[in-house]
């Protein structure tokens, strides 16, 4: 699959998360994104340094600003299981708006064409780092990094583009 690009429609897929009552929920991407403005944030791995200390916090801190600009959902997606995503989400006590969704099997990441092979590091196939803005499923901004680098996929860059 070629990496998703501006103008394309977000593929459908399902992602998992544990809700407030600890129930495992499966959400449809189209369900979350249709008729809405959404930001998808892809990270190579929960609890990994850049993801945890720079990339994700940026979106948590900028969440209010993004919402003020009309963004309905900010979704952090990683190829980790939902138990790990839940534990990772809990480390951000100041988070009010960002949803942490598990692409445990990596299927959605594959559908986006954004896989990153980290088998040599014992991480298996993960996701490239990215920040995508979609309006009613159409990709308007696609800031996709080479691998796990952190140059253009931060919250600031999405804010500038909105």
């Amino acid at each position, binding site marked *: 699959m070629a990496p998703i690009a501006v103008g394309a429609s977000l593929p459908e897929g399902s992602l*998992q998360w544990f809700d407030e009552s600890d129930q*495992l929920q*499966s959400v449809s991407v189209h369900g979350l994104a249709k008729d809405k403005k959404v930001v998808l944030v892809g990270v190579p*791995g*929960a*609890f*990994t340094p850049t993801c945890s200390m720079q990339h994700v916090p940026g979106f948590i801190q900028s969440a209010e600003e993004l919402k003020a600009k009309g963004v309905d959902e900010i979704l952090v997606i990683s190829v*980790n*299981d*939902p*138990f*790990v995503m*839940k*534990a*990772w989400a809990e*480390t951000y006590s100041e988070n009010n708006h960002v949803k942490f969704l*598990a*692409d*445990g*099997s990596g299927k959605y990441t594959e559908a986006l064409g954004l896989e990153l092979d980290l*088998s040599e*590091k*014992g*991480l*298996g196939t993960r996701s490239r780092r990215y920040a995508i803005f979609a309006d009613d499923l159409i990709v308007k901004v696609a800031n996709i990094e080479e691998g796990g680098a952190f140059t253009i996929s931060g919250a600031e860059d999405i804010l500038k583009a909105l």
Partner: protein
Amino acid sequence: MATATTTAATFSTAVRRLCFQTSLPSTSIRLRHVTTSARPTRLISTPTPHRLLPLLRLSATASPSSTTTSTISVGDKLPDATLSYFGSDGELKTITVSDLTKGKKTILFAVPGAFTPTCSQKHLPGFVEKAKELKAKGVDVIACVSVNDAFVMKAWKEDLKVGDEVLLLSDGNGAFTKALGVELDLSDKPVGLGVRSRRYSLLAEDGVVKVLNLEEGGSFTNSGAEDMLKAL
């Protein structure tokens, strides 16, 4: 392992059905059927549609009568493998099973997943609690293994405030788990856990398994610290 058997049978039927589709190019797929036959079955078949490919992997890794890796048992020498973890200096380190077990009394226990309910709430804390007692009975090393990456294992260790009494080791690519023949295929579950490890606890002396408490899947009946204490 009933789930694996049923799924493997379903998959086998599906692939056999595909053998009669002539519109696709042919390919050869090696299968391990769930039988007592020692010979793997080779099918010349048309390639499976993409959606069945995960089932292929399922059969190859979860067949209970796989002849390549039988399940570890008492009296066996532990296979060697490399596990990883983050040291107290924050550096990624590796350690071999040989380092962990050569000339030592070692307890290895495995969980299906870091941060999962039974693992976090009962199994690991149990060993942390009993670590002193176990060491007083001559155990040199207690290590927890999971098919999770080292970042996740580190975060889990910090979350549960585990010190040096129990090592938390990552079998990131599942190689050690596979070598022991204790894989637990959770790929068909909605949680997206993939292939993990069955829950177990074992005591090895100089790398030879003396005690083995291997659970069916992720249940928690005899693989706890109490049971290991009783066995020592």
